[in-house]
């Protein structure tokens, strides 16, 4: 685990910068005594061995898969050869990053079980919708990306806008995630920020550059298992300690009297009834119908995993398989947050108002890990967090490489080149994208408030993009001009609403219909309004402009596309059957935790 300083020295030399003594570079990667003194937990040799084996294994998989990664289709789309299970697990794993794990456990501590809305109503309907309604069009059109679909459906303007915004935001988000992960390792283990940033990102860069999407997907599936085995013991032991669910609820009521942290829909009637400042309309329409649909059906980071499926049936099944695992994720993310309320002997606080010696909401998962896990299990838990970071990072990097190469470089810079040229470009921009991410991570290190803005920036594009793609797939009359102006109007309106609230926080009641709305609630409403504006502008401009001939819409739009028949497949092999089972399980969960 010493290649980070060597790589940093090599990079400095390559950039022609003055030679820096290696002792100084190595010192920049060593932990400081102050960080070591304030860390939450200490690792034992067996924990280090587990982490080192993990790094060796992911790199080994990358080197092994390089020989199978020859063409552009191999590198960018894993040869379109993934089974439904592999694509489905990878689809969920790419979203299961460290920030996702720690952040939502922290949200569960802060808001209670309301945070599970982001896993259930905020994911399951969207995944089912992707599998049953949208996936056939992505797959039949043989697109390599979401912007690629937009180019076929709306032309280069809408595609270019979407591709450039996605590429920039993905790489910035990647840097923000990198910084956040390094900060967590510093707080938890006293690790040096530089060490965490360079070690983990270089490892991801190497295995993705070697094996492309093949390597990213393989590792994501392995990481998926590690995350579960590493995190699952916390809720199991937590429930044993509290005497089960009812014991946990009783302890929460005892520790926090008068507050409801364990019901999902009961406190949703009014804004003032819950700690999030939201009511059911925002959850159902803002989160369920727009924000989650935008993320799960048009964010190329996750959709790319499903496009790599081996046939239409596998592509339809993959998100549905993923939905079952997504439904289970609250067990390892939300439940530890709730258990933290029940068993921790001290109260956590928002990161913005921490007192010395106090822990933030986002530290609840590491604190619970340290509470129950000794040597060995602790190493496994830390490996799970590192695996989560790497799966998210690999998702960002591989999606960026594809969109840059196929949707920006090929249409706008070099239109005709042999396939190996584009593969080489993909490998190079994996590394370059990674270095830009590292640079972004260091910028965030010095300008911490930028992190909130970058995360908000990403959300600006998601909701309008869903409106654009959905109309493109379901409405033959949508035109190229309608698609472009709708997407632009939706995005700009989202930016305007965000700026308005930033400049004058009292305007939050205009956007989210309540002065009590917390940032998560504002996100939902902003998504809803920008999605509506995108759809309205697309419809109006389309009706005023000339539509594409129907012959050009074959394979792209419902009504102009012959969807493949599933023949005489038994019911249990049909995606629609499992979609129904997933929907039923989703409704049962809502009822249980109502």
């Amino acid at each position: 685990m010493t290649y980070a300083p060597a790589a940093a020295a090599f990079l400095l030399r390559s950039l022609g910068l003055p030679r820096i003594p290696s002792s100084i570079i190595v010192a920049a990667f060593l932990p400081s005594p102050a960080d070591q003194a304030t860390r939450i937990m200490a690792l034992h040799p067996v924990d280090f061995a587990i982490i080192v084996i993990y790094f060796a294994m992911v790199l080994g998989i990358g080197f092994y898969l390089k020989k199978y990664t020859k063409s552009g289709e191999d590198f960018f789309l894993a040869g379109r050869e993934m089974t439904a299970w592999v694509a489905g697990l990878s689809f969920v794993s790419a979203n299961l990053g460290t920030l996702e794990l720690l952040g939502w456990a922290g949200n569960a501590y802060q808001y209670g079980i309301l945070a599970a809305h982001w896993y259930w109503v905020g994911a399951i309907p969207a995944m089912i919708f992707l599998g049953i309604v949208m996936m056939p069009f992505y797959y039949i059109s043989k697109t390599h990306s979401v912007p690629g679909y937009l180019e076929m459906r709306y032309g280069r303007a809408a595609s270019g806008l979407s591709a450039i915004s996605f590429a920039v935001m993905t790489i910035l988000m990647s840097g923000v995630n990198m910084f956040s992960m390094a900060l967590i390792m510093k707080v938890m283990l006293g690790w040096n920020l530089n060490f965490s940033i360079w070690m983990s990102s270089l490892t991801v860069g190497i295995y993705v550059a070697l094996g492309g999407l093949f390597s990213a997907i393989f590792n994501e599936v392995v990481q998926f298992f590690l995350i579960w085995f590493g995190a699952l013991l916390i809720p199991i032991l937590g429930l044993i300690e509290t005497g089960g669910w009812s014991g946990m609820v009783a302890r929460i009521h005892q520790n926090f009297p008068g507050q409801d942290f364990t019901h999902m829909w009961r406190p949703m009637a009014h804004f003032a009834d819950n700690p999030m400042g939201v009511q059911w309309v925002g959850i159902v329409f803002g989160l369920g119908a727009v924000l989650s649909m935008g993320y799960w059906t048009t964010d190329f980071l996750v959709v790319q995993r499903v496009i790599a499926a081996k046939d239409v049936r596998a592509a339809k099944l993959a998100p549905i398989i993923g939905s079952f695992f997504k439904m289970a994720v609250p067990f390892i993310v939300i439940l530890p947050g709730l258990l933290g309320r029940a068993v921790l002997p001290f109260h956590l606080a928002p990161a913005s108002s921490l007192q010395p010696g106090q822990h933030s909401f986002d530290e609840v998962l590491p604190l619970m890990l340290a509470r129950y896990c000794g040597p060995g299990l602790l190493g496994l838990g830390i490996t799970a967090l590192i695996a989560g970071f790497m799966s998210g990072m690999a998702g960002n990097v591989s999606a960026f490489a594809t969109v840059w190469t196929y949707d920006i470089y090929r249409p706008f810079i070099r239109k005709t080149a042999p396939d190996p040229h584009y593969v080489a470009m993909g490998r190079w921009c994996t590394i370059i994208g990674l270095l830009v991410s590292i640079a972004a991570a260091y910028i965030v290190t010095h300008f911490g408030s930028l992190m909130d803005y970058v995360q908000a920036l990403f959300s600006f594009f998601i909701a309008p993009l869903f409106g654009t793609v959905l109309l493109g797939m379901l409405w033959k009359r949508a035109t190229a001009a309608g698609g472009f102006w709708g997407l632009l109007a939706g995005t700009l309106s989202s930016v305007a609403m965000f700026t308005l609230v930033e400049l004058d926080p009292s305007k939050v009641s205009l956007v989210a219909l309540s002065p009590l709305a917390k940032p998560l609630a504002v996100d939902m409403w902003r998504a809803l309004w920008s999605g509506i504006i995108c759809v309205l502008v697309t419809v109006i401009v389309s009706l005023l402009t000339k539509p594409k001939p129907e012959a050009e819409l074959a394979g792209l739009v419902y009504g102009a596309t012959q969807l493949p028949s599933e023949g005489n497949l038994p019911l249990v092999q049909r995606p629609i059957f499992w979609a129904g089972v997933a929907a039923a399980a989703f409704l049962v969960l809502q009822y249980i935790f109502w």
Partner: protein
Amino acid sequence: MEDQPGNKAGGGGDRNAAAGDSSKGHMIPVWFFIGLTLLTYGIMILVTGIHELSHPPATVLAELHAPIWWGAIMAVIGAIYVSIFRPRC
């Protein structure tokens, strides 16, 4: 339509379902890597748990000896995966 269920949509020969189906290809299935990882980690955690019988850690519920049964579960699942998906000549 070009793509019917069951047809492959891209090149790659029969290495393909190697990602998930060990019977088809030259590529080692991903499930084998998962099995190997779980088996290795399971054994390491199990051995650590046995060592902790005489040196219990300062964690809550240490008396449940979680590393022993959790390590054993991981090792058994890993061994099953390795056995089913091991590369065959």
